[in-house]
């Protein structure tokens, strides 16, 4: 089971889209093992959308 408190979130990369949007990508680890990737879209530094892709076989608590 995946407990959010156990996760390590590591900045991966970001890129600008036009002049106002930035796409951020973070890699998620648990006890050193890769769990998945979360992507966030910010409009003028305000979060507007997020998408997390989690490896198969992992369940949330």
């Amino acid at each position, binding site marked *: 089971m995946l407990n959010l408190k156990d996760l390590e979130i590591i*900045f991966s*990369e*970001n*890129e*600008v889209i036009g*002049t*106002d949007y*930035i796409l951020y990508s973070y890699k998620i680890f648990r006890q050193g093992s890769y769990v998945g990737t979360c992507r966030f879209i*910010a409009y*003028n*530094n305000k979060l507007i959308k997020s998408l997390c892709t989690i490896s198969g076989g992992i369940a949330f608590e």
Partner: protein
Amino acid sequence: MSKPDSLPPGQRAIPNFIIYRILGQPQVDLTSWRLRVGGDVSNPLTYTYNELLEMIDTSYVSDFHCVTGWSVRNVMWEGVSLRKLSMKAQPSKDVKWVYIVSLDRYTTVIPYEDFLDERSLLALRMNGRTLSLEQGFPARIFIPHLYGWKSAKWVTEITLTKEYKDGYWEALGYHHRGNVWREERFK
């Protein structure tokens, strides 16, 4: 030269930094990390992170300009004056260049006169917070009037020298100075 209300030619403002780590993300161990200031000096010095924190003497708000054409406006910078670090090392009168080496082995070269500018900074904090790892923790250079490739992250060696030597991007054709208001992007 500085025009605080306008962007330099060829730049557009974006909301936040785009993170570049051309040589990868170095791991930082503060117990072994040191900043060394040496070269053509009579008093080479080595600093720990805590010693640098106690030396913070400069803070201001300034824009950051990347040579690829984006700028981030109104960034709060805090750190140690590069002029002060230089003077403590007692440089030779013949020093003309400053060669920077980072933990990831990234290098760049800065004209000494720009390094001595009153706003040139060894930045330890940005926007009121300790530098993040991707922004160059524990210490990075920041010189407001030079393009960002001169603002090396994860700095570990500052060498004051008489001799010019290309850094990473300078060897690939980027300008020896990189003044944003003169659009000194390439040699």
